[in-house]
């Protein structure tokens, strides 16, 4: 992606942020695009030199420890809201700070500060160093900048777009929604954007930086019919530029939001109990919960995951291949580099039904004697790294979606889901179906809504009996995944699959 001047961002991001509310003149004068890297930004703005970093890393290793790193972050979050027909609210949040980590075996010491002064950083380093208790180690004498790939190519950074242009988009989406149905009574439209710059310097002598944009355009709408009200939300986005929010995207959001909310008036709640479930391509949360979390290597090295003893064992039929991938262009979970300096990459979890590997950060990779997989992530400089997913998806199989549906006598089809959760040790998971249909005699019939589906990860994997050839990544599938009090953006994708049976939480026995 193109690099924006960090000095400019820092100056203008205050307020509703240049990105969000600047006039064209302000945007031009204060947020011009340059080739400056985040490393240069932190050096120019705060005097972060290699010499200072060596000093801080030396302090972090003053009591020993195997490894130390410094994570600098500057993030701008902008949010623009239309409510009751007017764009009448904006917010901006600037986050700036540095986290210092010392690793000693599988132990982590961590300090952070919002002041990028030598004194504050040395104090944070002293906190980090307290995890160890031996003789001092020294960081590398020289830091080598690491080249990384670009998995979020874009034309125009959201932070470079004048407010007027963003207002038009938000207002146009509102107009399109109300044009589609007289039953719509309320619409709240929001445009959210996040621009994160990071610089990671470690005691092994590598220096890595990245800029990570993330945005989405959302419509939350309410419709009223015969005295009943229903609500739905639909959004699109990812690590994309302003060009993504064109008329086609706006129309898609309006079409889907209105279609989905109107469908709910005819929706029913299915009977409770175990039934076959066909899971459609927009429902990748299933994999995220059923297998993804259990494959995060920290849970496995501690023995607390149900998958801890299944490495290289058959866990699914041979047409099931599942990966976690940081390299998909412009998806929410894509990362050029993780938050401890490992390049973004694709990691195979299940290959033709065999469980092949876990998702590693540096600590777990060392534990297992493998290379880190680029899954060391954190919400911000206030948090230390833990293994996290990126974009988790199943590869296409050879079946046809229509054939799969036709093969089910009585079941449900899951179109879209939310609110997944898993119990790592047991493997039990749940996800919430916001849109779907009953399947009766091999045909999609009445729409369904508001139903939770429960299952067990390993059992569900074994029960995937058919995999269609229609893998899709939904740009509406921007997830915020929570773990250890931290939230990171993730993506999902999957082909249509048939799960022989899951528990559907209905209201009638």
């Amino acid at each position, binding site marked *: 992606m193109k690099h924006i001047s960090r000095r400019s961002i*820092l*100056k*203008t*991001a*205050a*307020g*509703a942020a*240049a990105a*969000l*509310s*600047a*006039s064209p003149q*302000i945007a031009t004068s204060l947020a011009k695009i340059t080739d400056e890297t985040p490393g240069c930004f932190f050096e120019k703005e705060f005097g972060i030199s290699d010499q200072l970093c060596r000093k801080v890393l030396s302090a972090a290793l003053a009591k020993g420890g195997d490894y130390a790193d410094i994570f600098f972050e500057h993030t701008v979050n902008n949010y623009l809201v239309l409510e009751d027909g*007017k*764009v*009448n*609210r*904006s917010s*901006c*949040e*600037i986050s*700036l700070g540095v986290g210092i980590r010392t690793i000693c075996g599988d132990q*982590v010491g*961590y*300090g*952070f500060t*919002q002041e990028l002064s030598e004194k504050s950083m040395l104090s944070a380093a002293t906190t980090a160093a307290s*995890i160890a208790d031996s003789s001092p180690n020294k960081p590398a004498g020289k830091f080598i900048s690491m080249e990384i790939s670009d998995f979020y190519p874009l034309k125009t950074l959201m932070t470079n777009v004048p*407010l007027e242009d963003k207002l038009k988009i938000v207002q146009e989406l509102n107009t399109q929604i109300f044009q589609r149905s007289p039953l719509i*009574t309320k619409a709240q439209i929001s445009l959210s954007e996040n621009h994160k710059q990071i610089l990671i310097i470690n005691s092994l002598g590598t220096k890595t930086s990245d800029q990570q944009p993330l945005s989405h355009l959302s419509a939350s709408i*309410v419709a009223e019919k015969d005295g*009943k*009200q229903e*609500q739905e939300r639909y959004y699109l986005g990812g690590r994309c530029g302003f060009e993504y929010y064109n008329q086609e995207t706006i129309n898609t959001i309006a079409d889907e939001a209105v279609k989905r909310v109107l469908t709910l008036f005819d929706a029913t709640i299915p009977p*409770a*109990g*175990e039934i076959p479930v066909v899971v459609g391509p927009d429902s990748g949360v299933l994999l995220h*919960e059923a297998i993804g979390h259990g494959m995060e290597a920290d849970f496995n090295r*501690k023995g*607390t995951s149900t998958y*801890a*003893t299944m490495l290289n064992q058959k866990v699914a039929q041979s047409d099931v291949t599942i990966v976690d991938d940081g390299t998909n262009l412009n998806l929410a979970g894509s990362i050029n580099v993780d938050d401890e300096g490992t390049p973004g990459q694709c990691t195979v979890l299940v290959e033709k039904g065999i469980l092949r590997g876990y998702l590693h950060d540096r600590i777990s990779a060392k534990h297992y004697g493998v290379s880190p997989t680029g899954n060391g992530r954190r919400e911000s400089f*206030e948090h*230390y790294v833990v293994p996290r997913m990126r974009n988790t998806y199943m590869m296409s199989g050879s079946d046809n979606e229509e054939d799969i549906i036709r093969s089910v006598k009585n079941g449900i089809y899951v179109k879209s889901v939310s*609110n997944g*959760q*898993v119990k*790592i*040790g*047991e*493997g*039990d998971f*749940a996800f*919430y179906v916001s849109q779907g249909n009953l399947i009766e005699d091999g045909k999609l019939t009445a729409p369904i809504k*508001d139903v*939770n589906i*429960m299952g067990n990860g390993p059992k569900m994997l074994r029960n995937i009996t058919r995999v269609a050839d229609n893998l899709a990544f939904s740009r509406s599938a921007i997830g915020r995944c929570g773990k250890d009090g931290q939230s990171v953006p993730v993506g999902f994708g999957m082909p249509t699959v048939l799960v022989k049976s899951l*528990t559907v939480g209905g209201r*009638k*026995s």
Partner: protein
Amino acid sequence: MSCNKSELAQTAMKIALKAGANECRITISNTRLVEIKYREMKPENIKEASKNEMTILLYVNGRFSSQRTCDLRNNALETFITNAVKQTALLAEDPFRSLPDQKLYKIPKEIDLENIDPNYNNLSTEARHNIAYKIENECRKIAGDNLISANAEISDSFQDTLVLASNGFEGQTQSTSYSVGASIALQDEGTRRPNGYYYANTTRYKDLPPVEFVAKEAVERTKRLIGGKKIKTQTLPIIIENRQVPRILYGLLAAMYGRNIQQKQSFLANKKGRVIASPKLTIIDDPFIKRGQGSRLFDSEGIASGKRAIIENGRLNNFYIDWYYSRKLNCTPTTGTPSNLVITPGNRSLTDIMKDLGKGILVTGFIGGNSNSTTGDMSLGIIGEMFENGEIVQPVSEMNIADNHLTFWNKLIETANDNWEYSSRRTPSLVFDNIVVAGV
């Protein structure tokens, strides 16, 4: 920075007003936090830090924006605020945006909420390590041979917040909080490794439960998950354990917020003054509980706190309406967010209730699910124990309950006398009749 907070807020306000804001509210907060986790009888994670941030709400010729920054250097602030004011002026006018009426600012200053632990600075790093070590050690002593992992943790924080509004409000709050707990993983049949936990949060250190109790609860609660499986779908009484009640209460509260009412996303919008639940349900919002974790003399807008019955004997008496939505809805503001929520307890213990109830399920955890604030429909995964005449007969997992809030809360038949004290949600265990529990 702490001693200069008022001065800094005044400076920020002057910059905003000079730049063209008609009104503004400045909130500055400082937080210090320490977190120590133990695993395998050694520190697994040590974390310590301080953070500062300023939030500025700007009202510029009827336009509104909110800003937050941690860069509190004077020059940076001036640029930040001046640009923010200019940019706020570009938004659409909203006649309902303003600071609250000054009449709402009358804070009852004579009340000491005991939000601060006077001995906060006396807790040493060594003492923290010692507590975490002891908890893990106790867990290991009693867990047995099938222990896979034991984590113990202590964390604490100190927060100091100043709020200054241009129409005359100034208020400061200071609070401390402590948390201790343990999480346990045990080996079950096959590949199942139940994870259980026990955590307690308090305002004062001396109110924390003893380390032996924390360890015992964490291990015992995990042992009770062993053998969990789903059972036949059936209609049963259920008891939601005291500390799990907030998860289901959340869906009811969501329909009480001014934003959802004004935006037609509330199934309770036209129910104020009407009976919506069993007469057994009384929910009090009480901001004046000493050492309560949600206690406060004023809310984030500066509106003076008041004790309110949200639901009284099943009747919906109050909504959560902040200043902005009170103007949009043309009603009196209350407060935008709950403080401490107390569900009035009953007279009997959980044990006694279970003995008399016959067969039912004690829900000890929720998983996934959702609640629709517009329709009231909800569906939640549950974890728990089937009991008969007071005896646990089968741990259950992979099961689900679904209902609509307007019918569900009318199925409440009893509240236990065991309000959970380690949270701002002081809820007792609740007994519901005729609930469809979905399983096999």
